[in-house]
C-alpha cells in the first residue's frame, strides 16, 4: 500500500506546524523522517494515522483517502506514537491480546501472532509481567510489538529505537529493513546513522516545510560540492610538498592540517578528482604516500546546513 500525502497543512493558532507538504511513499520503501524538535514530524504522523484531523490537503493510503474511510484504513496501519503510551497496569500478553482483538484479528490467528511478536521483540522472559514493571527498553519493545501485531501493510513509527540497548537497536533496525521489503514504512528519528542504516529514502523537514528529499547518497552529492582529501606525504620537507601539490591543476586549494606530521587537506576543483594526480606526483618524486582519505560529507552536516538558518 503506498502513501500519498498531498498539500498537508496544520496550524496551531498562529503557529504553522505543517506547511503544505506533499510526498509519496511506495510499497517496499522505508522512509526516514528527519527534522529538529518541533519541525512537525509527529504532527504529520498523527495526521497520517487519523488521530488529528486534516486542516488542508489529503492523505491517501492505498489510493483511499483517510477522510473518506478512516476506520477501514486504520486496520492497515501499525502505529507507534511518540513517548510510547501503554496501559501500565496490564500484563504484556493481555495487552497484546487486547490490541489484536481491537484490530479485528480472529482468535485462532491471535495466539500465533502474539507468539511471533514476543519472539521477534525479545519479550519472552517478560511476557507475564505488568507493563508498568518493565524498563524503558522493554516497554519500547512492547510498543513495537503492538504496532505490528495485526501484520499491517503500513507502519508508522515515531522514534522506534529510543531507550533500546545497542544489540536491540541493531535487531530492530534489521527487523524494520526486512519489513520494509514488502511493507510501507515511515519512521522518524533523531539518530542520523540510524537513517542511513535503515532507510531507502530520507525526508528532512524544518519548520513544517520539506527541505530535502532523496536517498542518503543524493543528499550527500547535493551538499558535497568539491572533493576534499586528507593526504599525508613523507620523505620531504612539508613546504616543498605543499608547493608541488599547489602546482597540480586538479587542485583548488591546499593547506596544512598538521605541519609536523606532513598532513595536508586539499580541495579539488569543481567536478574533478585529484586522487590520481596526487598519487602520480608521489611516484614521480619518490615520496611515500602514507595516507589518502576522501572526506565524506556527513549526514550530520547536511542536516545542520538544512535546518539551521
Amino acid at each position, binding site marked *: 500500500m503506498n502513501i500519498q500525502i498531498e498539500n498537508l497543512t496544520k496550524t*496551531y*493558532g498562529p503557529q504553522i506546524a505543517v506547511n503544505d507538504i506533499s510526498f509519496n511513499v511506495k510499497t517496499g520503501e522505508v522512509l526516514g523522517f528527519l527534522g529538529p524538535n518541533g519541525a512537525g514530524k509527529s504532527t504529520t504522523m498523527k495526521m497520517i494515522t487519523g*488521530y488529528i*484531523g486534516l486542516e488542508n490537503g489529503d492523505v491517501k493510503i492505498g489510493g483511499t483517502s483517510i477522510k473518506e474511510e478512516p476506520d477501514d484504513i*486504520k486496520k492497515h496501519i501499525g502505529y507507534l506514537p511518540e513517548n510510547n503510551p501503554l496501559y501500565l497496569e496490564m500484563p504484556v500478553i493481555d495487552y497484546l491480546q487486547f490490541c489484536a482483538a481491537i484490530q479485528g484479528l480472529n482468535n485462532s490467528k491471535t495466539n500465533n501472532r502474539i507468539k511471533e511478536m514476543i519472539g521477534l521483540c525479545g519479550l519472552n522472559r517478560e511476557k507475564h509481567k505488568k507493563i508498568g514493571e518493565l524498563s524503558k527498553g522493554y516497554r519500547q519493545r512492547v510498543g513495537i510489538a503492538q504496532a505490528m501485531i495485526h501484520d499491517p501493510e503500513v507502519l508508522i513509527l515515531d522514534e522506534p529505537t529510543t531507550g533500546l540497548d545497542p544489540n536491540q537497536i541493531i535487531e530492530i533496525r534489521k527487523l524494520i529493513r526486512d519489513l520494509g521489503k514488502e511493507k510501507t514504512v515511515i519512521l522518524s528519528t533523531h539518530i542520523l546513522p540510524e537513517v542511513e542504516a535503515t532507510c531507502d529514502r530520507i525526508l528532512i523537514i524544518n519548520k513544517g516545510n520539506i527541505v530535502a528529499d532523496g536517498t542518503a547518497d543524493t543528499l550527500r552529492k547535493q551538499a558535497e560540492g568539491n572533493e576534499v582529501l586528507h593526504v599525508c606525504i613523507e620523505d620531504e620537507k612539508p613546504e616543498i610538498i605543499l608547493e608541488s601539490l599547489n602546482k597540480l591543476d586538479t587542485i583548488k586549494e591546499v593547506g596544512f592540517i598538521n605541519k609536523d606530521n606532513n598532513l595536508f587537506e586539499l580541495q579539488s576543483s569543481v567536478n574533478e578528482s585529484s586522487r590520481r594526480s596526487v598519487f602520480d606526483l608521489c611516484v614521480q618524486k619518490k615520496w611515500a604516500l602514507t595516507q589518502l582519505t576522501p572526506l565524506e560529507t556527513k549526514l550530520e552536516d547536511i542536516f545542520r546546513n538544512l535546518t539551521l538558518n
Partner: protein
Amino acid sequence: MYTIWIIAKRELATFFDSLIAYMILVLFLGFSGFFTWLYGNDIFLVGQTNLRVFFNIASWTLFFFIPAITMKMLAEEKKTGTLELLLTKAVTNRQLIIGKFLGSLLLVCIALVATLPYVITLANIGNLDNGGTLCGYLGLFLMSVTYTAIGIFASSITNNQIVAFMFALFIGLFFHIIFGVLANNFTGAIGQLFDTLNVQSHFESVSRGVIDSKNIVYFLSVTVLGLFLAERTLVQRHLSK
C-alpha cells in the same frame, strides 16, 4: 459491536486488577448496608417488609460513587496518551465512548447484584412485594445509566481525574437536588419543567412501580445526550486549536 465489548471487558478487568472494583464494592455495600440495616431510619424502624429504605440510600450512594468510577475513563487515557493509541486503531470515537460507558455500567450492575442478599433476607423475614422490589432495582439501574453517561462526559472534557470527578458531581447535583428544589419554588410551566428535569421524581415514580414511558424516555434521553456530548468532545481534537 465486538469492538465495544472488547473495550468494556478491558475496563472491567482493569477495575478488578487494580483493586478499585473491590474498594467500590466494599464501600457501596458498607454504606448502603449500614444505613439500611443498622443505623438511623433503618428497615427495622420502618417496620415494613420492603426495600424502600435501601433504594433511597442506594440512590445517594450511587450519586457519589458513579463519578468515582467514571472519572478515570477518558481523563486518564488523555493524560497518559493511550487515547492516541486506541483511536489510531480500528476504533471509532463512538465505539470507545460506548465501550467505556458499558464498562463502568457493568461495575455498577455488579454492585447492585451484590445487594441481592438483602432481598433474600427480607423475603425470609416477611412477605416481600416482588414487583415493588423489581421496580426499585429498575429505578436504581436507570438512574445509574444516566449518571454513568454524565460521568463519561465529565471525564471527556479534562485530563485530570479530580476535575472529572468534581464536574460529574456538579452536573449530577443539578439533576439530583437543584432541579427538585427549583421545581418546588416555581409554579406553573416553569415548575413543571424543573420537575420534569429532576432525576429524583422520575426515580421515585419508577421505584414506586408507576413506570411511565416518559420516565424511560427521560433517563434514556439524558444518557444519550451525555454520551453524544462526550463523543463531540473527542471529535474536537480534529479542530485546530
